[in-house]
């Protein structure tokens, strides 16, 4: 295999990024085929960091089946497809999850009319579930652990799941809470559907790269960290130019490459993080623009707030 992933990407002058085939808010093509979403923004940030242009990305839609193969076979350089970081995927599947860009958990959505307020009351229910995901395993485990019975209705895509749920073909729809929120947001009557309080699993979603190319892993990891750190330090796409000139915070200076050429350690130039942040803003900006409370998806920051705000986002120091 000639060269590292970085070299390959630079030679190709394009980043191949594996994404979901269509999950509004995270990754979906619009009517003219432009991809937008939370995961998309991360891809663009990496492309900006590595190639200098956030648009030099090719989005490869992957299904639940094809995503990991696409990555391990080299079809994509990075997989940013709301995939859960699990032990076996990290080890047995020979992937490297380089961080978490969204802390999620699996939940249930039910129709308000059912009068159900807790997942424990779902005994005997019919539950719609997307095949081939960790949610399938979590669901089985949860109901077993609580000694409840259920009938799964396997569905093949999110759109199909919504359809089934809306028609009442299942009592509950289960997937990651973020997905539930996104789905509910698109309903004509969101107020009639509630997301139950139980979160039955930990779903750290994050970008993954192939095992073995640590340098490339570092690049993706630190691009993500740069976005998170940028928010922590108040670096936004709007004030970035100014901070480059005026910031006195040494951490910010190192992040933006005005002192200490950290980029060289990654094999990039000094301004890599600037470009990554400029691509779509810092983590907070990306969140707000794609899935935040102002968007139809309407997700609160919750666990995904900075550690300083009581969340779990915690970028290691740039030094």
């Amino acid at each position, binding site marked *: *295999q000639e060269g590292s992933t970085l070299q390959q990407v630079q030679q190709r002058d394009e980043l191949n990024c594996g994404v979901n085939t269509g999950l509004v808010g995270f990754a979906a093509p619009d009517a003219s085929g432009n991809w937008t979403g939370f995961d998309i923004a991360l891809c663009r940030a990496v492309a900006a960091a590595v190639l200098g242009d956030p648009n030099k990305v090719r989005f*490869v*839609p992957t*299904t639940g089946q094809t995503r990991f193969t696409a990555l391990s076979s080299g079809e994509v350089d990075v997989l940013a497809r709301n995939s859960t970081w699990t032990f076996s995927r990290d080890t047995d599947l020979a992937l490297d999850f380089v961080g978490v860009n969204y802390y999620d958990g699996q939940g249930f959505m039910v129709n308000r009319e059912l009068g159900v307020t807790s997942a424990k009351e779902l005994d005997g229910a019919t539950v719609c579930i997307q095949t081939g995901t960790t949610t399938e395993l979590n669901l089985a485990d949860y109901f077993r652990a609580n000694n409840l019975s259920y009938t799964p209705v396997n569905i093949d895509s999110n759109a199909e799941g919504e359809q089934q749920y809306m028609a009442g073909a299942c009592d509950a729809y289960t997937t990651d809470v973020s997905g539930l929120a996104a789905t509910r947001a698109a309903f004509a009557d969101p107020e009639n559907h509630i997301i139950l309080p139980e979160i039955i699993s930990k779903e750290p979603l994050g970008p993954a790269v192939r095992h073995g190319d640590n340098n490339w892993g570092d690049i993706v990891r630190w691009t993500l960290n740069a976005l998170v750190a940028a928010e922590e330090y108040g670096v936004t796409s709007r004030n970035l130019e100014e901070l480059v000139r005026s910031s006195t915070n040494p951490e910010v200076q190192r992040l933006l490459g005005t002192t200490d050429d950290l980029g060289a350690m990654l094999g990039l130039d000094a301004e890599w993080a600037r470009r990554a942040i400029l691509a779509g803003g810092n983590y907070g900006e990306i969140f707000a623009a794609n899935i935040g409370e102002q968007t139809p998806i309407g997700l609160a920051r919750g666990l995904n707030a900075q550690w300083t705000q009581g969340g779990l986002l915690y970028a290691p120091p740039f030094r």
Partner: protein
Amino acid sequence: MSDTHAQTVSFVRDTMLPAATPPVREAGAIKWLRENLFSGPVNTILTLLGFAIVWFLIATFWDWFAHSVWNAGSLAECRQIIAATWGESARGACWAVIRDRWNQYVFGFYPMDLYWRPTMTFGLLMVALAPVLFSASRTIRRTVLAITAVLTLWAMVVLGAPAGWLAFAAAVLIGGFLISERHVLWLLPFSIVYPLLGVWFLWGGSLWGPIFVLVGPLLGWIAWTLVSRIAPMLGVVAAILVTVLFWLLYAGDAAADAERLLSLSIQTVRSDRFGGFLLSVTIGVAGIALSLPLGIILALARQSDMFLVKTLSVIFIEFIRGVPLITLLFVASLLLNYFLPPGTSFDIILRVIIMVTIFAAAYMAEVIRGGLAALPKGQYEAADALGLDYWKAQRLIILPQALKISIPGIVSTFIGMFKDTTLVTFVGLYDPLKSMSDAVRASTDWKGIYWEPYIFVGAIFFLICFGMSRYSMYLERRLQRDHR
């Protein structure tokens, strides 16, 4: 008792009777009804049942169709319009979604300013097909080509094609029309280069790529002429070898070098931009064009008296026919990368086309084998006795006849394959039926719309497939009549 009875009945007719009209017992329409609908108790029951079915279908779907809305920006708006026009409880079809997402259904995510390119490619396809498909009838050819030319040029103007390309398309379409009027077979060279032109138009990039792809078979042909003097069969092997080696080893670099010397590029459009019917038709046409020759080779191999060749082709054909297409598509999307040298990864559409081709070719081989088997042995013997070698006999005598016999089977394989292009949805491509409809439904505007996309896509598939099967029936009848 006598043997002379005959004398007593001896009879000669002097005046011939004129033909009379049949006795008319009832008026025409009533007679027809009685004969065709009510000719017995069972028939009467069947007729009533038939009417019941028709009535049920009409009663169920009529107001839904009657209350169609063609112009709205979202499903909610549609429902408002329906409620406003036909009352609160009225149901109605919201065809506005097709109108709204027409481009997406037809072109997928192809860049909007380049829509004229697929349009032109499709228009030129008709010219390329003229000598192959429409050679049988001058009227049909004239109609098809004229309509194609007008429609294509009109669509290109509407879609804002650059003047240069417009002129090019006009030249080819009108030129093709004129040439086909004189001698349709003169268009064959165009048919041969068309696949490469088509690829170039659709995907863009440098023209040198297709040119050097074309150089491969050219070199192969040279090798064949040289070697086949020694032995024709070795000639074929050499030709294939030379072609493949050239493609693998030199074509890429040569094209890149040439491009550096003289740039012949148009804007590149990547595979992930393909979707909707553009994707189906691209995969379908490519699969059809490639599976036919492959199928012929497989069929000949299966008919061969060389044990090894025969066994290999039997194994191949039976294996492919024994597994579902969807598993082969999985192979394309999941496993092909295992089988290729590490680090190579090529276009998913191309991989899918390869698998679809292989799949169709196995079926095609069986169809053609049937045609070969139907030929009388005398044809082979006559060819032998005239001194034609194997390849010439196949090319000039056997295949033309076998293919004609197999036309119905070939076309139904094509139809099956075209329908199967919808399965690419399972490997993440945007087929018009499922992926595209899911994508449309994922947007807030059209969430919850269900029937209309399916009916629309189904209707288009029906038109194409039904048209193909009718045309093949026409062709079959025509060929039968031709040589009698």
